């Protein structure tokens, strides 16, 4: 077994949540999102044990307009610089903020897919607590409700984006060639399910139910946009790390999942496919004739068998592509090991991936405990059957929304017995504590101990104000450094942030 060349696939998820202020005639989503997050942060601050911060976000190194392709085609405009009204950096290393008209939470940088699942669950807990905190502030007849989904059913979509650390040296064309077929076909297990369609020109009669929330919204193969003309491959080139060495692949095609197994598969398979791309371990290219159409074809095909046209002629099914990727991944594990995605996590991932592909072939409904689209479909089918409803009945759309309700007492997904990968204790820990094995550890621990001395934070730096000196910026350009192994002892030994800065020599 030789060591893999691929760099560690540090990864994370940023989720925009749907939000409604109930009890008012006109709900202002920006104000509601701000209130939600402020309510949470204020409540934390009143607890001296947990000094989560009012630390501002530092935009100095952010450049969302940079394009991974280098030469940006004429007419491809950079998106507006995002405006963030409320920003909090949490002690678990996450960022919690208002993005446009939604509350959004970015998990801390995680070393593997399992850890991402833990922090994604922690995010749900944080949103749930935020709702409760807001309820204490709002009049009795008003309530803020948050949904973890990706569409309002009226053509408005909001994202659940993934991020993966990649080696800058990998040609971007190779990423596009191999990530595209994965993104199209992983929908088989990443889909959160949706009643009807929002694609122009199609109606619920054409598509009564589909695998994903997002497939309706993709119009381009490659591009920089996230809100208009959404591309399958997003080229935002903003590594939040040493730009000479790294790129951060920003993935916008995914659904927000309620099922932990779906999140695990989504992030885990993608990290592994990207590692194989980095190591040039995918000899077979699946260049689809019409990738944008294929996104929808896969999402609309509940038979999971529809052939997709290849550019070179011939056809292939989504499962064929997934089996090929899986078989290569197994071979990759044998030859290179799985250290870049976590050895143990990688092995678990391969087992689950294989099981899910085999079951999708033989008995898709058998995956109701693991995949959202199956769990939701089964529930809706049972309800339809009992009440003799057609797919066009509004009650099914209501249940579709309510599947994603983050209030425990209202959640439908929470009642379906979805498999848990992460225990409650571990989720609770992830609400407060950063992961041990990325730079998020340094960020989170510094905020736990010295939040009053930290005036700004972002993904790749912390800015300290320790009194008389000028502000001190501590750069964190290496996502794999600042771990417990690197700085755990150092942080323990320092009584004050001034001492830490002195020891760091900054």
């Amino acid at each position, binding site marked *: 077994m030789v060591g893999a060349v691929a760099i560690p696939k540090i990864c994370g998820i940023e989720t925009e949540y*749907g*939000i*409604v202020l109930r009890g008012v005639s006109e709900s202002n*989503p920006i104000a509601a999102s701000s209130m939600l997050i402020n309510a949470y942060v204020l409540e934390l601050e009143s607890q001296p044990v947990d000094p989560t911060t009012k630390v501002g976000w530092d935009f100095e190194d952010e450049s969302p307009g940079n394009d991974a392709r280098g030469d940006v085609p004429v007419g491809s405009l950079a998106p507006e610089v995002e405006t963030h009204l409320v920003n909090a950096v949490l002690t678990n290393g996450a960022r919690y903020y208002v*993005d*446009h*008209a939604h509350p959004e939470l970015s998990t801390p940088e995680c070393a593997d897919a399992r850890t991402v699942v833990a922090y994604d669950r922690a995010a749900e807990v944080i949103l749930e607590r935020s709702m409760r905190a807001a309820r204490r502030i709002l009049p009795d007849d008003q309530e803020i409700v948050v*949904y973890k989904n990706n*569409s*309002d*059913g009226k053509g*408005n*979509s*909001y*994202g659940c*984006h993934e991020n993966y650390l990649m080696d800058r040296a990998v040609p971007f064309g190779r990423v596009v060639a191999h990530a595209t077929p994965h993104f199209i076909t992983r929908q088989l297990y990443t889909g959160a399910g949706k009643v009807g369609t929002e694609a122009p020109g199609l109606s*619920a*009669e*054409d598509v009564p139910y589909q695998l994903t929330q997002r497939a309706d919204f993709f119009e381009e193969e490659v591009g920089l946009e*996230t*809100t208009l003309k959404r591309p399958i491959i997003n080229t935002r080139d903003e590594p939040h790390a040493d730009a000479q060495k790294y790129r951060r692949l920003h993935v*916008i095609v995914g659904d927000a999942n309620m099922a932990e197994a779906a999140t695990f598969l989504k992030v885990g398979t993608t990290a592994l496919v990207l590692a194989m791309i980095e190591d040039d371990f995918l*000899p*077979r290219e699946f260049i689809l004739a019409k990738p944008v159409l294929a996104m929808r074809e896969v999402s609309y*095909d*509940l*038979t*999971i*068998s*529809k*052939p997709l046209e290849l550019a070179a002629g*011939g056809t*292939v*099914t989504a*499962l*064929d592509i997934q089996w090929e990727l899986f078989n290569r991944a197994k071979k990759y594990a044998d030859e290179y090991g799985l250290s870049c995605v976590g050895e143990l996590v990688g092995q678990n991932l391969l087992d689950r991936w294989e099981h899910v592909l085999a079951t999708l072939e*033989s008995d*898709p*409904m058998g995956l109701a405990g693991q995949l959202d689209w199956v769990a939701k*479909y*089964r*529930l809706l*089918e*049972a*309800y339809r*059957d*009992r009440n003799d409803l*057609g*797919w*066009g009945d509004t*009650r099914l*759309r*209501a*249940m579709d929304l*309510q599947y994603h309700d983050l209030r425990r*007492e*209202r959640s*439908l997904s929470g*009642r*379906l017995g979805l498999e848990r990968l992460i225990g409650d204790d571990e989720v609770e820990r992830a609400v407060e504590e950063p992961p041990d094995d990325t730079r998020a550890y340094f960020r989170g621990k510094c905020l736990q101990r010295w939040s009053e001395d930290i005036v700004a934070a972002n993904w790749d730096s912390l800015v300290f104000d320790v009194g008389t000196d000028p502000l001190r910026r501590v750069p964190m350009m290496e996502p794999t450094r600042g771990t417990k192994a690197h700085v755990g002892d150092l942080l323990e030994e320092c009584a004050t942030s001034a001492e830490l800065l002195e020891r760091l020599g900054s």
Partner: protein
Amino acid sequence: MAERELKRRQTPKRDDEEIDEAPAPAVSETGEKIKAELDDLLDEIDDVLETNAEDFVKSYIQKGGE
């Protein structure tokens, strides 16, 4: 490049379905069995479901994002 012919599982193109048809021929469980398994759950969620589905769905509007 290790090309191979892909012939397996080429099912015919699915016709557009009527809105009231169950859309999933791939489903191996019958409606009856699903119903039995989910019966208790359905009893339970009847109390949890939004009371006015029409209003709920209509008023859920999300603009701006990403």
